[in-house]
């Protein structure tokens, strides 16, 4: 590719997210593949850690602001910042500006970062103009919308449009896709019995849908739902939507046992 053409390609900084980094790197690699296949160049800045949500939602504003400034400094040089997570993307896109509204240096920079921050599937569809992927996943699938994706970022159609293009994939909608899974970050451990009751309802809806596989765009939701399905001994597989769209489904599903040998 000529330098000129390379320069025209959107330059994306991948916001890996702390959960993907720690629990499921395959999601990060799937995101890179999807972005590169769609024509972007992807850089993964090494100094990233977390978007600051745990501090922000616990009322620790000072730490949240400090982390936000660090993220802005790390990522503002890119054309776009993309995260395989609605809640982290929502943090960058909506909450940094209110966090730093009174900061004379960073208020504007937060606004600039917000304008170019995106959740992965909505970026692929709405910015890069993709409506299909080249992947195969012969399974019945149902999709859970994370609260941040749905209500903060208004994402609903983008992941479904991409999933429908996956060869062999049969997408069924479950009831109450718009209802919370009960994760809510620290909420899931601060109020575990309430969180458990909420995820039990989600798991009932998943079972009713008859799908063999549950997908979502947020690893927090997936860890919570998969954890409940696993405790219940359910055979439903959980994966991140990026893995299926990228055709990278060799790794065991979330909470799935590794096959011996």
């Amino acid at each position, binding site marked *: 590719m000529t330098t000129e053409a390379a320069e025209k390609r959107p330059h994306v900084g991948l916001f890996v997210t*702390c959960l993907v980094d720690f629990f499921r*790197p395959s999601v990060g*690699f799937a995101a890179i593949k999807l972005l590169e296949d769609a024509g972007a160049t992807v850089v993964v800045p090494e100094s990233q850690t977390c978007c600051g949500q745990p501090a922000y939602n616990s009322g620790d504003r000072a730490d949240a602001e400090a*982390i936000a400034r660090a993220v802005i400094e790390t990522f503002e040089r890119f054309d776009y910042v993309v995260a395989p997570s609605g809640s982290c993307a929502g943090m960058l896109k909506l909450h940094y500006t209110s966090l730093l509204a009174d900061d004379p240096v960073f208020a504007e920079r937060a606004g600039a970062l917000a304008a170019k921050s995106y959740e992965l599937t909505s970026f692929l569809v709405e910015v890069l103009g993709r409506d299909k992927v080249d992947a195969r996943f012969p399974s019945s699938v149902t999709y859970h919308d994370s609260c941040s994706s749905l209500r903060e970022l208004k994402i609903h159609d983008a992941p479904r449009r991409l999933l429908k293009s996956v060869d062999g994939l049969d997408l069924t909608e479950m009831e109450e896709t718009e209802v919370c899974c009960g994760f809510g970050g620290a909420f899931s451990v601060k109020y575990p019995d309430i969180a458990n009751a*909420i995820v039990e309802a989600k798991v009932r809806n998943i079972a009713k849908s008859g799908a063999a596989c549950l997908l979502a765009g947020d690893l927090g939701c997936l860890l919570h739902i998969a*954890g409940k399905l*696993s405790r219940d001994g359910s055979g439903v597989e959980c994966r991140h939507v990026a893995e299926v769209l990228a055709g990278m489904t060799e790794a065991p599903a979330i909470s799935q046992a590794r096959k011996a040998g």
Partner: protein
Amino acid sequence: MTEASPQDFKSNAARALADAKLQRALINVKRGFIVKRATAKAKLPEFGQLRDEARAIKDNTLAHLDLYLEAYERKVVESGGKVHFAPTAADAREIVLRLCQDAGARLVTKGKSMVSEEIGLNAHLEAAGIEVAETDLGEHIIQIRGEAPSHIIAPVIHLNKEDIAEDFVRTHRGLAPERPLGTVPDLVAEARAVLREKFIAADVGITGANLLIAETGSSVIVTNEGNGDLTATLPEVHIVVASIEKIVPTLEDACTVLRLLARSGTGQEITTYTTFATGPARAGDPDGPRAYHVVLLDNGRSEMLGGDFRAMLRCIRCGACLNHCPVYGTIGGHAYGSLYPGPMGAVLTPALYGIEQARDLPNASSFCGRCEEVCPMAIPLPSLMRKWRERDFELGDPPLIQRLVLRLWAFTAKRPRLYRALGGALAPLLASLAGDRGQLSALPFGRDWTRTRDLPAPQGKTFHTLYQRQKRSGES
């Protein structure tokens, strides 16, 4: 009245989760109110616009609250009524008691009023020897049970008809013990007969107000039963108890709000009765009260007006946030230990009683955002709950362990190299603990999660470890 307190949230919630009958009742709330609201909204294409306008109306009113209150007062006086300002709950109940005593009242009927419960009115009147009869069917039932309401518009959503039949047998004296009370219509018919006697005998009728209208000096109540009207019309004296933020400027403003109120709360297009009361009976009126009093309660609202929680004063008490909240939907209203439960209660309760008394309420939320989405006044409830968490954090309130974990997390998150090192060590460790099982069903310090859910195991190496390795071997 029960001694429930927001400080008992965790134990109350645990009890609620184990209460099978409550759980079944809560499913009805969800199915009923959620579906009906969605249907009503779909039938009114202008819903979104009206919501924007209602928010603007309330914001404008709050920004000029002093002037609108003065205008309202002038109009009430002009129509022959009287306005009494009450800075605190104690002031308000004293004023109402004095008005009842001046009227020589022995029996008072009451329409449903959250504010009257907020000021502890019933106990105050009863202590002075005045009989108080709640007339809203749900409020009547909780009165005879000595309970608090569990939902701001459907007070006995947590009870079934067998419970209520027992209560009626126990409390409605002088009726044949074998009388039919097996069906809901039987129960309603009995309540109608019993309460009718009270309506007719009452010396004073006390109602709340969904809205107060500055343009005309009117108070507005919305009911389906008609009990508010019988309370306001039959006795000689009508007392309205309302908090100061209930004011809207004009009749047109009231119309905008009314289009949203019932649709948001119950999914009705309008309640059966919406009543505008303005002053006492006029010369020539054959019915209606001879005296009309409005008690305007502050009790913390003026403080909210000047602070971070002003937006909460837009609340019109429709109940939509409760109906759509996944937390309320699993634990019900009593678990909050507050007159105001659910998302609106999570913001209002600390404002009225202090965050130290109620810290669990704004914390017990996953911030799913449905409350804000369905609020007809576009109140940013999750953001306001987060503000309470900030206050709580500043006070050093959260438990020590939680604060330590959080500080540790933040400390590491601000130091990328340390973060990488710790993550790089911990992820493989957890993965090996899980072995081939793919998940951990027990984890040191992890019982809060693992008691009810497995924890999926990390894949092994962190993303950054693998990515750096890839880059170094020149594979990308």
